[in-house]
């Protein structure tokens, strides 16, 4: 029996309102289905980054490195490939690649042994050409170390803080802390106060200033006024 006849009979039994309700249910139930398709093949690394990377573009080489490092943009994670691409970009002087290479050596991972010396080498090369914040970051890393791969090195940290100090108030404050606590050298509260004043860190300056004689405070203030990056 054709289905339409069923409807006619149903109309006869249930009435028009009930059939309308059935129709609405059909719309809601049958009609609002969503068919979900899988994403297209992910070939972004191969189509967007690889052609330029193969021509020697450092940014594209860095992106290939990131893709292999994290297994994204359509390639599986492969630290050997990541290292190869980062190295190519790093050798061209691309800062982010130098940092990435240094961080990979610091972390160690599949097919790459952790190596503190290589890590510091590449991170230092990155910081050399980077901004004050990059030098500050390296100084903080050296100050705390990353055991067991990288032991803390207060002297090296102080040198990087000094190199960042001209542009970074945070680095100036850290130098104050180094002198206050005697990290990487002797304790010198007068020098600590000078750096805190240069960092515009009132809380720190008040704390250290309270330990000094007025003449020492005056000398520290004078040194801060005369300081030139």
């Amino acid at each position: 029996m054709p289905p339409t006849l069923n409807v006619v009979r149903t109309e006869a039994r249930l009435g028009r309102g009930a059939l309308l309700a059935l129709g609405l249910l059909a719309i809601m139930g049958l009609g609002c289905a969503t068919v979900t398709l899988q994403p297209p093949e992910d070939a972004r690394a191969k189509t967007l980054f690889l052609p330029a990377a193969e021509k020697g573009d450092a940014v594209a080489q860095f992106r290939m490195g990131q893709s292999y490092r994290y297994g994204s943009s359509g390639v599986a994670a492969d630290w050997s490939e990541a290292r190869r691409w980062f190295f190519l970009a790093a050798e061209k002087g691309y800062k982010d690649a130098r940092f990435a290479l240094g961080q990979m050596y610091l972390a160690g991972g599949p097919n790459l042994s952790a190596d503190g010396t290589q890590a510091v080498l590449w991170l230092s090369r990155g910081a050399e050409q980077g901004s004050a914040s990059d030098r500050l970051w390296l100084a903080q890393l050296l100050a705390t170390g990353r055991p067991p791969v990288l032991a803390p090195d207060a002297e090296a940290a102080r040198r990087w803080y000094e190199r960042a100090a001209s542009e970074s108030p945070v680095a100036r404050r850290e130098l104050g802390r180094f002198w206050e606590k005697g990290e990487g050298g002797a304790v010198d509260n007068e020098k600590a106060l000078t750096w805190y004043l240069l960092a515009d860190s009132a809380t720190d300056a008040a704390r250290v200033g309270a330990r000094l004689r007025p003449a020492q405070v005056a000398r520290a203030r004078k040194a801060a006024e005369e300081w030139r990056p």
Partner: protein
Amino acid sequence: MRRRLPVFLLLSLTGCVSVRQLPLPNNDAIGGTYERARAGDRAAVRQLADANARGSNGLKANDLEAQRLYLQATEAGDPAAMVALAREKLGKDNDDAEYWFVRAARAGSRSGVDGLRGLYGDFRYGRQSLPLALKWAYVLNSRYWIDAHAKNLGPEQQAEARRQADDWLSRYPLKTY
């Protein structure tokens, strides 16, 4: 009724059936956001830092790179990055946390001010000072926190906290980011 049935069927089949294709995994931290960060967009630098901190947008968690990028964004004056650094330090190095919250507050960040209120209002951070917590609650203009901190202080301390808050706001007004 026979004429209506095809209409019902048509409505159900053509009106609402939708086809959806799942998108490719987000790789903005290697693609678009990275490009904007390279061009000097400080918000993009912070977003890149967030992606490194969380391990999202095509990256896996990398706390070292997150720190480097947060610092880069703070040096460019991004208050949200200052707050992110402060929160990361909170409980580990509260001097550092305070420093970054203060810098964010000076830049007019509500989150920075709220961080200072929490730092002084919560005994867990070892530097509880209800007058200071009330000062920052006044700066924040949060009725809830003003009431919460003020009830344990005398009228003079409340007035002083109010005065300090007004003084702060005259120098560092809150901004909408």
